[in-house]
C-alpha cells in the first residue's frame, strides 16, 4: 500500500473513532430529557443549515 494512502486511512479511522468516543462521552453525562432536547436542537439546526446550503 502507498504510504500516503496508509497514513490517510489511519487518520480517517482515528478521526472517526475519536468522534464516536466524544459522542458517547457527551451522551453519558446527559439525562434522558437533556439527550432528547440535544437531539431536537441539533435536528432543528440541521434543518436551518440545509436551507442555507440550498440557498448558496
Amino acid at each position: 500500500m502507498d504510504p500516503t494512502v496508509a497514513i490517510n486511512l489511519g487518520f480517517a479511522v482515528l478521526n472517526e473513532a475519536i468522534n464516536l468516543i466524544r459522542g458517547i462521552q457527551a451522551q453519558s453525562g446527559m439525562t434522558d430529557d437533556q439527550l432528547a432536547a440535544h437531539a431536537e436542537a441539533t435536528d432543528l439546526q440541521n434543518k436551518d443549515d440545509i436551507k442555507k446550503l440550498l440557498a448558496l
Partner: protein
Amino acid sequence: MRKLRPARTTAIAFVTLAALWFTAANGCGKDPYRTALAGSDDVANTVASAIKVTTQYYGTGKLNDPEKATIAGYLDTVTGSNMKFRHAVMDMHKAGVTDSAQYVALAQAFVNSVPTDPVAFHYHSAESQAKFGEVLGAVKAALNGIALAIQNAKPATTTKGGQ
C-alpha cells in the same frame, strides 16, 4: 487516484463496522428508550457533520449544484424522519411502553422511510465520490445502527406513564 479506491473502501467498511459495534455496545446496559434517544442523537450529529463537509466541498467547487441538491435532499429527508422517529419514541415512552420490540419496530420504520442508498450517488469528482462515500456512509451506519442497539438494550426495570 486508483490506489485510493480499495484503501478508502476498506476504511469505510472498517469505520462502518466500528460504528455499528460502538452503537451496539452503547446500547448494552441501557433501556430501549435511552438507546433510541442516543441513536437519534447520533444520526443528528452525523447529519451535522455531513452538512459541514458538503458546504466546504461546494464552496471549493468539488461539488456541482445538482450534487449539492441531491445531498441536501437526502440529509433533509433523514433529518425529518429522525425528528418523527424521536417524537414517536418519546410518545411511546410516555405511554409506558418498555418492550424493546416496539422500539425496534419504530427504528425499522425510520430506516425504511429513508430508502435511498447514499453511497450509490455518483459525483463528477473522484475526490467527492470518495469523501461522500465516507460521510454519507457514516449517516447510513448511524441509521442502521439504531435497531441493532435497541435489540441489545436491556429491558427497562420501571414503567413510566402508568401502564
